[in-house]
């Protein structure tokens, strides 16, 4: 595979990791703990979208459809945007909503009643992660699944001019990621909510004294983190397969990204996510190291950062 192709793959994979690591970084800076359930939140998003995909494919459109729909609606659902059917974008939104609802419920049921330090919260989040995954296995089984979106070929003019295979879904993944990341940037920098979030991340007590309802800020943090994570999960599911274990496998990568970028710094997380995603795909270009070790490369990057610059690239900045 050409290096340029690896770069393209790296950008696509980076999108998924950036989306995951932003939420993790938000929880780190505002909620003050390492959230080990964040990877499984991504999986929840992927499976939330899967519900819509199953619904559309099995109950509305498939050969053995249970509900008969008029051909116009069927055609509307099948309309493709960048060779992805319209219903897939609905599924993406449903996945985001499912993850957001679940983390808010978790916040009220699990985290809010706890009066403990950050380490206890960390260990609790492991319990939450295992519970999420168990629910996914109970509901969907542990076999890999797909969204049933037909594979579309590469975009011809790109492969002819650059010799690089880019599929329309790659474009969609990167474009939506870019929109979400820019949206988050605008939210954090130019809205009252964003200023409140940054203030809470900086010093929660001071923020509370200034009249900021930090409880609400924490809810906003969960919702934003979950929505982005769910989008990452859906894109990962679209790119590979949807499995209950996918979230755990992402966890190591997004933690590496967050540590690389500097714990608690959202912009650092974006940068770190991009670097780790590239490193993950670039493993294929390394001599003597097989691609089965691409998760290990992320780990090595993390260890080196811990040795050389434990605060990460942007560690001294706050959100």
């Amino acid at each position, binding site marked *: 595979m050409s290096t340029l192709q690896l770069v393209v793959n790296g950008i696509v994979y980076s999108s998924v990791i950036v989306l995951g690591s932003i939420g993790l970084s938000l929880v780190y*800076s505002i909620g*003050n*703990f*390492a959230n*080990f359930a964040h990877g499984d939140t991504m999986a929840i998003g992927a499976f939330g979208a899967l519900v819509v995909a199953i619904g559309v494919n099995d109950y509305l459109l498939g050969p053995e459809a249970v509900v008969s729909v008029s051909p116009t609606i069927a055609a509307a659902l099948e309309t493709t945007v960048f060779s992805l059917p319209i219903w897939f974008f609905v599924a993406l939104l449903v996945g985001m909503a499912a993850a957001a609802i679940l983390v808010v419920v978790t916040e009220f049921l*699990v985290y809010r*009643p*706890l*009066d*403990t*330090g*950050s*380490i*206890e919260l*960390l*260990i*609790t989040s*492991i*319990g*939450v*992660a*295992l*519970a*999420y*995954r*168990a*629910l996914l*296995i*109970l*509901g969907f*089984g*542990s076999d890999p699944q797909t969204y049933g979106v037909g594979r579309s070929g590469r975009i011809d003019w790109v492969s002819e001019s650059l010799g690089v295979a880019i599929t329309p879904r790659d474009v969609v993944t990167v474009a939506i990621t870019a929109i979400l990341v820019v949206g988050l940037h605008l939210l954090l920098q130019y809205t009252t909510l964003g200023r409140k979030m940054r203030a809470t*991340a*900086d*010093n929660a*007590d001071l923020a509370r004294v200034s009249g900021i309802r930090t409880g609400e800020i924490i809810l906003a943090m969960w919702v934003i983190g979950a929505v982005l994570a769910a989008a990452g999960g859906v894109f990962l599911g679209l790119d590979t397969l949807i499995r209950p274990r996918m979230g*755990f496998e992402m*966890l*190591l990568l997004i*933690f*590496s990204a967050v*540590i690389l970028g500097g714990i*608690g710094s959202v912009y650092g997380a974006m940068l770190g996510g991009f670097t780790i995603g590239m490193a993950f795909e670039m493993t294929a270009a390394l001599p003597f190291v*097989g691609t*089965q*070790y691409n*998760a*290990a490369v*992320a*780990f090595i990057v*993390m*260890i080196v950062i*811990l*040795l050389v610059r*434990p605060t990460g690239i942007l560690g001294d900045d*706050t959100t």
Partner: protein
Amino acid sequence: MSESQSDGAGLTERLDRLRVEPGNLGVSILDLVAVGVFFLFFLMLVAVGVLSLNYGMYLLGLAGMYGFMIVGLNIQWGYAGLINFSVIAFWGIGAYAAALLTSPGSPHDLLLSPVIALVVAIVAAAIVAVLIGIPTLRLRADYLAIASLGFAEVIRLLFLNEREWTAGSRGISGAPELFEWLPVEPAVRLLSTTASVGTARNTVVILGLLFIGYVLVRRIHRSPWGRVIRTIRADEDLAKALGKNTYMMKMQAFVIGCVLMAVAGWFYMYAFEYLDPGELEPLQTFYVWVALILGGTGSDRGSIVGAVTIVAILEGTRFLNEIDLVVALFEAIPGIALNVSAVRLLLVGLLIILVIRFRPQGILPPKEELIWPGAAPDDSRSQERQATREQRGVDE
């Protein structure tokens, strides 16, 4: 040289110093009674026929193996506050040392003695622990948590993919008898004519090793080293101010804990005689965590109780699909299939959440074990939490 030439009086004096009084073992009469009652109960279950002797001994051996891992994790998390999420990786290092060096199914065909494998397991685990500790132990506690979780995955990938060295997913089967010279056969024959002598010997070995390990751990727990390490957990800055090299102390605690985990893995190969990288699933690490926090963080006794509890949970849930009520319950919920491993996963997850919510100190609180005598008259935990909060406030 002068010591070896010392006269008889000096020798008795030194022997006197070596003599361990029952109290100094760190095992009280009450502990012995509790263990005695447990074994009586166990024999009763066997006599009534609830458990077959073989299955019962297998369960005891399993509990002994978990006991090693939990005691090890207790040194790291309970004493020193180190979050190690790579319990299973160190277990795997021990297990693969046993499998590769001594098993007839090993790709290297070495057939060494299990004792050599034990030594290699301990040395390898210690070296790897130091390598993990160097980048992480100087930093905040959560860095070790993240790095160790990653390390566990890397170890799993290594054992899975380096097929020439580890046989990969094909696995390694077969193991020599452990300590064949141990005279357990007559004792087993007293109880039953059909019981497996091999299982009995393994159980005796692991419980014996666990007893030795437990006594040693109690020793170090009550030693000056143990006091300093508990101070580090409560307030690292205080320990530093007192001139303690906290990084070194944490490193020692981490290495000791990891070595105990490797011993558990070493034993596994002889008890189960089969090993593949599938055993290195990170979930196993969290079984040990649940056992520790159920038993009581920081409590040595609690670690042993936790070992029995986790074996009861793991083996108990295996029979879930034979209980009519559970099956009916799952059939009542549409869209959900009864999957024993998922139910176990859910149970472990909920247990972690519930224990931290309602009994953060665990089922058997360590009483005064964690508290500096006379220094903490009131609720020391709330002070610790206060300290955590201030720490976090300062960090930002």
